[in-house]
């Protein structure tokens, strides 16, 4: 309950900031089926922002990319 414990707990293994904002690292391209698998769970759902670590802008880009990839059968709607 206490909010103090949150400050004490070290943030381990969590990268800060959006990895798509960091230039050159990863691009979101709906045509790259293999890379797109990274953005969906094994159930085929879009990975939420709290897990993907993307900023709002890039999460939107991921969402549209996943939906485009689904439309042309590069990604499944369900698994």
């Amino acid at each position, binding site marked *: 309950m206490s909010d103090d414990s949150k400050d004490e707990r070290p943030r381990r293994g969590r990268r800060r900031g959006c990895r798509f904002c960091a230039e050159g690292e990863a691009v979101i391209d709906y045509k790259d*089926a293999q890379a797109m698998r990274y953005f969906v769970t094994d*159930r085929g759902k879009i990975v939420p922002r709290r897990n993907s670590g993307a900023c709002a802008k890039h999460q939107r880009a991921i969402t549209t990319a996943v939906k*485009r990839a689904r*439309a*042309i*059968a590069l*990604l*499944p709607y369900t698994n």
Partner: protein
Amino acid sequence: MSRAQLAPGHAREYETIYILRPNLEKDQANDVATRIADAIKGTEGMLTEAEFWGQRRLAYPIERHHRGTYVYIKYLGRGDTVSEIERQLRLVDSVIRYQTVQLASNVPLEGKSAEDVSIDYEVEYEPDEPEQTVERELGLDAPPPERRRRDDRDRDRDRGEPKGGDDDKANADGESSDKAEAKTEAKAEAKTEDKAEEPKAEEAKPDAAKGDES
């Protein structure tokens, strides 16, 4: 993207991906290509890129096909270019899916020559064999998910049954203290029951674990 009017001498950039039925004849694929080329020419567009991706496995079946031949094209044009291309794609039966995405608006057409990009179909088609294997795969792949669903529904009942079997055994043991013959009989019965139910219970367990994960 922006719906603003196009400046004269400018165009928008689009890309279209279309999926052809697997195991098409080469000239059928070329027929689609020429239809698109004509559509672009007829609407003063410009084909800038064409890629033949070849056969790929579809993430889900489309019109009962599990594989499809992907073709990617990139072109400059206006809205009527897109509507004409999509109309042509709709007319051809061998196209099972298409999608157009706008990449950029207000691209100046000047300085860009209509260099003829021909869609390269010089990719060797896999013979009829793949479709056959897909059917075979289908036969193998289809049952497990179905079975799983059935198990999910009956999971609780399956779980309950082995428990019931144990109770029977306990009862049998209690009775057998009086009659030795009845004991052996009952035990044998219980064993056969257990044997019959064990595989069921084992089936249900992994599914239950899966259910917890998701």
